[in-house]
């Protein structure tokens, strides 16, 4: 349930942060790719997502090489947040 709520929150935050006009949370699949396909995000969006993680969740992406894995889909972002929160606890 916590994961579902986190995914739902992330969708709203992504739409707001990236100003995805005419996109609704239900339009974004939990496992749909965010870059190239799916939402078609680009490198600037990646920076916006890194800022989003810092602002909303206090999480820094320390290794840029992890980016493609973390930002693959909304679910992978949620899993990364959950892992980081668990490690911080």
């Amino acid at each position, binding site marked *: 349930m916590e994961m579902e709520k986190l995914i739902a929150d992330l969708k709203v935050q992504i739409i707001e*942060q990236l*100003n995805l006009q005419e996109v609704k949370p239900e339009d974004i699949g939990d496992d749909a790719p965010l870059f190239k396909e799916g939402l078609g995000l680009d490198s*600037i969006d990646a920076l916006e997502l890194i*800022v989003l993680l*810092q602002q909303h969740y206090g999480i820094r992406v320390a290794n840029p090489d992890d980016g493609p894995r973390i930002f693959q889909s909304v679910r992978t972002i949620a899993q990364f947040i959950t892992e980081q929160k668990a490690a911080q606890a």
Partner: protein
Amino acid sequence: MKIFINGTGSVSPQETAAGAAFWPSFIPAEGNRRKVVDPDYKQWIDIKQIRRMSRVIKMGVGAAQLSLQEAGLWQPDGIITGTAYGCLDDTGVFIKKMVEQEEQMLTPTAFIQSTHNTVGGQVALLLGCHAYNNTFVHRGHSFESALLDATMILREGTAKQLLVGGLDEITHFSHAILERFGLFRHHVDGEGAAFFVLGTVQGPAASACLAGVQTVYKPADTAAVLRARDQLLATAGLGWADIDLLVLGQDGTADAWYTAMGTGKPALGFKQACGEYPTASAFAMWLANRVLSLQQAPPELVLQGKLPSKINNILIYNHHMGSHHSLILLTVC
């Protein structure tokens, strides 16, 4: 060498992008602020790109696309813009976040989009245009400086067709600050973007030429402006008697500058339609080009006199805050 106005486009507080002669119906000012009537920008800009564009960028890109469409041109030899305020809204967003977040975790979009040359850059990106790209930021002479640059480049022969525009936006904060300075006691705040395709070869849509541009900074008196006017007309091989119509920057109440310039000539006022902003003369040039093309003028803008049956030469005279004076001469071609 003649410089032809091969295409024009305007996004303004009137519905100038709607395809009517001037606009479907005149929209009068309500209060002391005029906002642009936004066309559907999605007809020119992909929805994925629109999301990173603030209002002024969309206004500029829309006006640029309209002018290119009219000229039937898809790749200009250069893009020159004039703007006093630049991307003011994004600048405000970025600075506000800097303060609120103590310079930490700043998002890149507002920063990237907050520079004055963003509109020129965005137009170039959309067109894939790698040619000359320059933005002039000279307060009330920003658009005129862009025109002068374009004129010189075209006369040098290094370009055949240039995309030239002037644009500025009002934001909630800029309006509030300028209002506190008392700026809009006698004027209505305005905004807009107007673009032109200028070329040395006449295009199918061209009906007017840009015959000259003259700027005067802080003239001592009205006589100094009149001397500049006569100099401009002489350079174009014309005299005061040849001017058929004036397009003046006054929006109702005349001041000494406009009174001195307007003596004895039929005149239109353009700021009744677009409001006061530093690059409002770009709107005036769009209006004057339409008047020459259609040989008619919007009755709402007539300040004085009766329009002659044939309009060959129009002189645009504007001043911004009494310090930046400019004269733009258009002739029929």
